[in-house]
Structures are given as C-alpha cells and as structure tokens.
C-alpha cells in the first residue's frame, strides 16, 4: 500500500473544541452550537506530506476530565494524539501536567501535540499571560472558529508520524 493510514485521537475535557477542530480540518466548517460527542465519530482526511499521501482516520471521542477515563479500546493502535484544552477555561488546563505525564507513559512513542484552543475568545495579551501560567508548554494555540493553526496542527502531527 502506498498510502499510509494513521489513527489519530483528540483527547481533553468536554467542550474544549475537539469536534470543532476536526470539522474545521476535514470539512472547513464551524458551528457555534455545542453538541457533545457521544461514543465515537470517525472522520477521514487525506493530505500530502513531503510528497507522501497520508490518510488521517480521526477518532472524535467524548471529552473526559482525565485520559484514564477514556475507554481503553478507543486508544488501541493509535498513531498520534492531540491534547486539546480551552485557553479561556482554566479548569481545562489546571490538571494538564498529570494528563500529559499519563499520556506519555501510556504512549511513549506516539507523536503528541498539545493545543490551546478558542484563542479567538481572548485578547492577545490575555493569551500571552495564560501561556506563561500553563504547567506544560503548549505546541500551538488555535481557533476552530477562525481556522487559525488548524491545518498546521494536523500537518505537524502528520510530519511526526511519517
């Protein structure tokens, strides 16, 4: 098979914008409505990275406060992970250190990106301040609403999964 298929999972608290980020990336659409994810939804998107076709099979799962609460069977065989938190909601990044440690322990080799989402809700100054307060350095700040950095996140993850 010339094309590579990769299973990618987005994890993080409820209501941080996991589904929205995926929708933006796959369908380039955004909705203000909040419809919480139940179970799993599968999305697919093909991109070309360094001349290679890569198929993202993205598992959009329900948010959980901790990764340990995520059903194990959803995590099986994953190739890459994205941890999403809400920049504007402190409770979604307060326990991040523990989450990141757990993820690294569970998936020591899988590429992994940390994303602070809903950037558009804050002023640039506020974002800066929050980034300083974070217990763990985040890889990207993003907005599923404006689309800022959305494609870049998946491209960087894809690059790391090559």
């Amino acid at each position, binding site marked *: 098979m010339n094309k590579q298929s990769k*299973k990618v999972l987005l994890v993080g608290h409820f209501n941080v914008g996991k589904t929205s980020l995926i929708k933006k990336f796959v369908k380039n659409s955004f909705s203000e409505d909040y419809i919480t994810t139940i179970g799993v939804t599968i999305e697919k998107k093909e991109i070309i990275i360094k001349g290679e076709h890569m198929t993202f099979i993205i598992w959009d799962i329900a948010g959980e406060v901790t990764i340990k609460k995520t059903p194990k069977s959803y995590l099986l065989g994953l190739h890459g992970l994205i941890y999403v938190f809400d920049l504007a909601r402190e409770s979604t990044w307060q326990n991040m250190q523990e989450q990141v440690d757990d993820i690294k322990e569970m998936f020591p080799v899988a590429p992994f990106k940390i994303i602070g989402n809903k950037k558009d809700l804050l002023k640039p100054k506020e974002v800066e301040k929050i980034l300083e307060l974070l217990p763990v350095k985040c890889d990207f700040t993003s907005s599923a609403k404006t689309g800022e950095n959305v494609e870049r996140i998946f491209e960087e993850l894809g690059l790391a999964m090559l």
Partner: protein
Amino acid sequence: MGQKEQLDKLRELLLEEDRELHSKVTENLDQITALLHEREKFETKVDPIIEDRLRKFEKDIPQKMGPAITAALKVQIADSQNEVVDLLYPIIGKLISKFIRIEIQRLSEKIDQQLSNMFSWKGFLRRFKNKLEGTSESELLLRDTAPPLLEEFFIVEKGSGILIDSYSRNQTIDQDMIAGMLTAIKAFVEDAFSKGNQELEVIEYESYKIQIFNFQTYYIALVISGVMNAKFLLHLQDSVLSFAEKFKSYTSNNETTSNTDITLLLKEFFNE
C-alpha cells in the same frame, strides 16, 4: 482437597449444569415439534408458547446457572484463588451465549421450516403486513426469499481500525471510514456490554447483516444481503478460515505484503 481436586470438582459441577441445560433444550425442542404436528392446535397456540419458552429459556439461564456457579465457586475456591474465576468467567460466558444463539437460531429455522411445510402462515402474515405497510406483495416476497449474498469484505487491523484491504461488489461507500466505524462500534459495544474478553460478532440492520470474524491482530467483516441461514453461515465460516490460513502465510512470508496478493485472494474468495 488439593487445588487439582477442587478444580476437577468445579469442572464437574459446571459440566453437569451444561448437560442439564442441553437436555432441557432438547426436551423443549421435542415438545415444540410435537405441538407443531398437531395442526389444529397449532394455529392459535404455537406462537405464544414458543415465545414463552424462549423467554423462559433465556430467563432461566442466569437464574439456574448463576446461583449454582456462584455457590460452587464460593465453596470450592478459597479467596486466594481468584485467578480461577478470572479465567473461567469469560469462557463460561462465551460458551453460554454461543450455545443459546445457535440453539435459538436452530429452533427458529426449524419452526420456519415446519410452518412453510404445513400451511401458508407466512403468506397470511405477508398479506397482513402488506395491508399495513402498503408494500407490494411481490416486493415482500422477494425480500423474504432473497438468497444470502456476500456484498463486501473487509480486513481490518484490530485496535487501530485501519483498513488492510477490502473487496466490494459495488464500491459506493468509503471503505476506510467503514473500517474505522466498524472498529469504533466494536470497541463501543465490547466496552459497554461485554464482560471479559467477548467480542462483537454480528451487526444487523434491515436487509443487511455484518458478520465479524475475530482473529488475533485483525478481524474480517463480511457484509451480507438477503436472508442469512445457518448453512450459509457455516459455509462462510469455512471459507473465512481457509482465507485466514492463506492470508497468514502471505503476511508472514513477505514482510511487506503486496496488496495485489491480498486482492487476488479476495477475488478468489468472492468467486467461490
């Protein structure tokens, strides 16, 4: 008692339950068969009776087996031997559920057969349904008698749900997505409802059935249209097993399995 004797005793106890269960099923079958032959009574009586028995049969399993197993385990196994329970639990569960499924299917096929042999109950039902739904008689008839047909074949990596290969009569849907979704459904069901290491084997919707065959690192999903019967399922099972045999030698011989090889295998499978 030594650990071995305890285990033997336990095995004996469990087997006895199994035998009892089996003779009970056979007895039930005999009774039903006898009833079926009494044509007069049959029309009005057989339906509720069968339903009743099935319900009772299903209800009896946990009731009859549950306490007996628990009691046996309690007496026979000391606290330190929890592992035995862990080991036995999934096996027993699997045995029972498989047994019930097969028996019920056999029972219902037998009833179907008897029905069509004796009088046209189905014809009556069809006309009745047809009145209700406004569907044409021939359309319903066709649906009832459509032979089972293999529509799609997926080989999917377990866990990741990545499609290894697939074959389809009419490629209309995205195969990667289907493989992912099937795996997600499997994961969801297995996580939510099954105790121990049971695995999802069938998904059914109106005129399609997805039959799943689980192997160690991958699973095979077959989409079948038409009316499935036990004979066809048996045939599928055999074909899948021999396919898996060949598939294994392909994957272990050359490290990078060329997809054309698998596709060839699949073609062979479909043309059977």
